[in-house]
């Protein structure tokens, strides 16, 4: 592995990830995912609506990858922020754990 080409891999990865972040709000299917859809099919309706009304134990700042009142641009921003957040955490994690360099 050469260091230079791995940095290229990183830049290419960032570009692809940000591109997906920008497209996802428009292209992603709004249908429930496999688990939610299975739940809708096998759980009784009254129980299902009970489950759906239960609040998450810990609240989150950008629920459902959206920012309140910002529509599609908020969704793009939320996903891009998440992408960059994961990137920063991974790089930081790599710095902490990489003591051999």
């Amino acid at each position, binding site marked *: 592995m050469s260091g230079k080409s791995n940095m290229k891999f990183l830049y290419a990865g960032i570009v*692809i990830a940000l591109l997906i972040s920008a497209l996802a709000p428009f292209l992603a299917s709004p249908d429930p995912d496999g688990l939610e859809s299975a739940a809708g099919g096998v759980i009784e309706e009254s129980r299902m609506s009970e*489950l759906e009304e239960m609040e*998450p134990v810990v609240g989150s700042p950008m629920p459902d*990858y959206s920012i309140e009142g910002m529509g599609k641009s908020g969704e793009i921003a939320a996903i891009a922020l998440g992408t960059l957040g*994961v990137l920063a955490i*991974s790089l930081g994690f790599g710095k902490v754990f990489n003591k051999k360099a």
Partner: protein
Amino acid sequence: MHIPDSFIPLTQAIVYWVIALPFIFMSMKWAKNELDEMKVPVLAALAAGIFAIQAMNIPIGMGTSGHMVGATLVAIVFGSPWAGVLVLTLVLLVQGFAFGDGGITTLGANILNMGVISGFVGYYTYAALRKSVGTSIAAFGGAWLGLFISAMACAVQMWVAGTFPLVPGLMAMGTFHLIIGFIGEGLITAVAVTAIAKSRPDLLEDSFAAGSDKYNTEVHA
């Protein structure tokens, strides 16, 4: 397949955390032993890419959608399922805390399903198939099976939790994730692995290089 808090009672959710923790610990140990300045950029690129692609739900019909998980892809690139556990743990932490995608009490179960089970099944299936069917098809098969088995595990957890009935739960989760696994996991993983094998063959060779191959790898890197 991100399980929300309401789907698993707290005591059971804690049990999944307890099962997941040694795996998370082992993935940290992997990072400590294996990560170096060369590998960190690759790990970070994959983690960011997987976070983004998990937001891209693909319609599979039947009013249902699904997205890639990615643990198998990371495991193949790094030649270790622990890398998959590590990346999925980071991604799921951000999804849970920042976006409410998957509960925090159920994060242990989600790490277990998507990081551990899908990554281990996917990687070792890939490793077993690779010599006979080639890298691309092995990556497809591994990723597909990894996602399917993790969905089965999730259905069993839902049954133990009293949330799903056993057989209908297995049938529904199985049907949806056979399709999600084919498109969302299998095809994307195969395309990504094939692209990496073409553009950066050294990355995949390093993953399997044992001592003697190292020299060759460095020559054409």
